[in-house]
């Protein structure tokens, strides 16, 4: 009731704006939510039935068979543990190293500032390519080790620049006054810069975390034979492969194959896998959400 009162007490342009805003937001909600629901519906639908098309946001013939196919692999648990671990460790170390470098680069009294910036920027445009990188990793002795998930991506030039431009936007006088109070550079970094940069750090943390969570290629390249270092995404990739290739497997021709194929199809398993990998990382968003909101109010009032 209170809501409707304010609605009627407002001026026409305001109401128009609200109405438009409301519809626009509904629209955005629909186009972002629909694909997700669609994937969920297909993953829960009988795969033979899915071929007929016409599945939108609700499964027609409910089944868990697609998920059963995925969860019959016991290596998933090891993979899940490693994925979580690399996400946490990779994000923490990545965030600390990127922000430290960003802080250094933002300091006007740092002599090599320009040189290092250019040096970093180059990596945005050029990379060594797959084979040289592979050989470098091998020569560094990072093959078959957990650290290959963390070290190579610890300083990402793009993230450093994003954080630096945020720090550049903070009043330099804050640092100066802290210095007058006797703070050294580490203290300034940890006590002044880091707390003020929470919004950008949250954003970058999310970038790194999603990247770490989704990564499977490094597992495949460097840790393919180290089974205890496998990641969830790599294992799921293999599951997906198995459904795609079972069609050509010699042994399952004829009747066997029709029955196997009728139970699950690559398309349906792919959808189920999508759900399995999306949900855990989705859970991270609410925790970081408040920093985004804070970021907006922080920038609103400025002296």
């Amino acid at each position, binding site marked *: 009731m209170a809501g409707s009162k304010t609605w009627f007490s407002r001026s026409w342009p305001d109401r128009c704006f609200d109405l438009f805003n409301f519809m626009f937001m509904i629209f955005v909600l629909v186009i972002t939510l629909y694909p997700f629901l669609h994937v969920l519906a297909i993953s829960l639908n009988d795969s033979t039935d899915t*071929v007929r098309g016409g599945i939108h946001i609700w499964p027609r013939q409910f089944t868990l068979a697609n998920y059963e196919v995925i969860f019959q692999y016991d290596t998933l648990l090891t993979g899940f543990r490693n994925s979580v671990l690399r996400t946490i460790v990779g994000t923490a170390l990545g965030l600390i190293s990127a922000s430290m470098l960003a802080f250094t680069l933002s300091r006007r009294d740092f002599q090599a500032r320009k040189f290092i910036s250019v040096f970093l920027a180059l990596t945005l445009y050029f990379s060594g390519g797959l084979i040289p990188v592979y050989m470098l990793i091998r020569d560094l002795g990072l093959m078959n080790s957990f650290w290959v998930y963390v070290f190579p991506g610890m300083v990402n030039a793009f993230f450093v620049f994003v954080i630096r431009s945020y720090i550049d936007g903070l009043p330099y006088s804050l640092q100066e006054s802290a210095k007058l109070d006797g703070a050294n550079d580490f203290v300034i970094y940890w006590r002044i810069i880091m707390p003020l940069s929470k919004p950008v750090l949250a954003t970058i943390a999310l970038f790194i975390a999603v990247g770490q969570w989704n990564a*499977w290629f490094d597992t495949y390249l460097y840790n393919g034979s180290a089974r205890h270092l496998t990641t969830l995404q790599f294992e799921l990739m293999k599951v997906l*492969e198995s459904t795609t290739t079972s069609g050509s497997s010699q042994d399952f021709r004829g009747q066997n194959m029709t029955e196997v194929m009728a139970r699950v199809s690559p398309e349906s398993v792919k959808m189920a896998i999508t759900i399995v990998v999306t949900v855990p990382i989705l859970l991270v968003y609410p925790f970081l959400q408040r920093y985004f909101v804070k970021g907006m109010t922080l920038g609103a009032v400025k002296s």
Partner: protein
Amino acid sequence: MKKHDFSLAGLILVAVLIFSLLGCAQNEQPGHRAAESENGDEQAGDSSGGGLEPITFTAYFEDPSPNWNNMQDAVGKVITEKTGVTIDAEFAVSGVDRISLIAASGNYPDLISPKGSADQLVSAGAMIDLTDLIEQHGPNLKKVYGEYLPRLRWSEEDPSIYFLPTYDGVGQTYFDAGGGFQLQHAVVQELGYPEIRTVKDFEDAIRTYMERHPTIDGQPTIGLSLLADDWRILISVTNNAFYATGAPDDGEFYIDPETFEATYHYRRPEEKEYFRWLNHMNATGLLDPESFVQKYDQYLAKIASGRVLALTDQRWQFQDGENALKAEGKYERGYGHYPVTLNEQYVRKDFQGTGFMGGWGIGITTSNPDPVRAIQFLDWLASEEGQILRRWGIEGEHYEVVDGKRVIPPQVMEEKRNNAAQFERTSGIGLYEMFSAKYGDGVLDSTGNYFTTNFPEQIVESYNEVEKEVLAHYNATTWKDLFPSEEEFPVRPWGAAWQIQMPTGSDLSVIFQRCDDIMKRRIPQAVLADPSEFDEIWDQFMAELIEAGVEQMEREYTELVRKKVAFWNET
């Protein structure tokens, strides 16, 4: 100040915590490793009474094998017991080319099965020539490859044998036909099982049924539906042009069996008539108007609706749609395979033999510590005992011999069907397909049993009642019976031309790409055009091909085919 110190300490504490956490994760590695190898030793030690030193080979396969169980499966244990060999294998994922990394880095596994990138390993000098090893230690390999052994050689310039083909089975015969032209069983049932031999018969059947039943389940009936989604146009549309005009599948070329001259197959005059027929089908409303625009999933959904009377496709491509019909019990909407040609003058050569084509396989690298043990291992797998073990499993456990015949007990069959992945992982049947040479379907062992678990009786068993009834009316037991058999044609001395690789970046492949683009544009245009304009469009198509250099391409391809014929058939 005090506060500051505290926070710094906190930072350090966090860092230490993280590092120690990871330390744990990393420390696990050696422990794990040791445990694994202990296990392996123990096993081999238990059983290697025959004096076979246990040995572990690393291996990499360029194909996924998600159920790989580190040889802890039933078959794997027997293999280790018999040969003393344990394989520490890695498998590719999603076709990402890792071979080039392996070739460039110089870290070769002991055994490698590289598929299309094999040349990179050979030019890196990673592979051992197996010729002498096979001669001295490979009696079973020699037996399996037999007269085709020379086809294993790498090239004219380098006649070494680097790889043992493992993908193709030697002597493979096909028990069923999955191609031809397809008609719904309902159509032939309604029309009293007319002879379906030429495109005219095919067309009449579609027309008559369509006139009688303008709708199926309340939706408009569709006559012939084609699929042209990217490369699938080859399978559903253009390959039929050569099949229907009496040529076997040689990819995008027609190879003259006498002179080995290659022709870009669209340039054959008889194929123009085939496309004219498609054009006529479109003009008379029998062709699905969405044929050239629909996507694969739409095509399958349409088939699954049961209202598409006819297809010109391969079963593996439309199977998902047909399975949906079967699941609903609409067996009469499933498809039969008919040997349709443009007219009586042609016979279909779907089954014309290629001989053993070799192809991808496994090789031994220069990193291998004991190539002799390795070839003996591969040879044992190729022996009759080894092949039966790989395909059938262990006697008394996965199969039984009843009256001299190998049979799979029903409960094992049940497990194999309903729990395929789990069955593969625990039994190991199917995990070792790519490990060594093998015979194909239809080859008999010394006891008169098939080497593989596929045999003709099984095909018939897999048909539903409607299919059996339709086939009975055509005096056949399998769809293949309707087609001319492989015995009617000579084996093609070049194998199949689609296997011949065009060097990447060469003129040949550039021109081929250009012709392919023209074809994908012009074929739909010609089929959908008004019949009066067909000739004109076709002439333009031909002129454009010549402009793109099709004649040069054909000359160069002819050279490749002739080279292959000479190389494969010299002794």
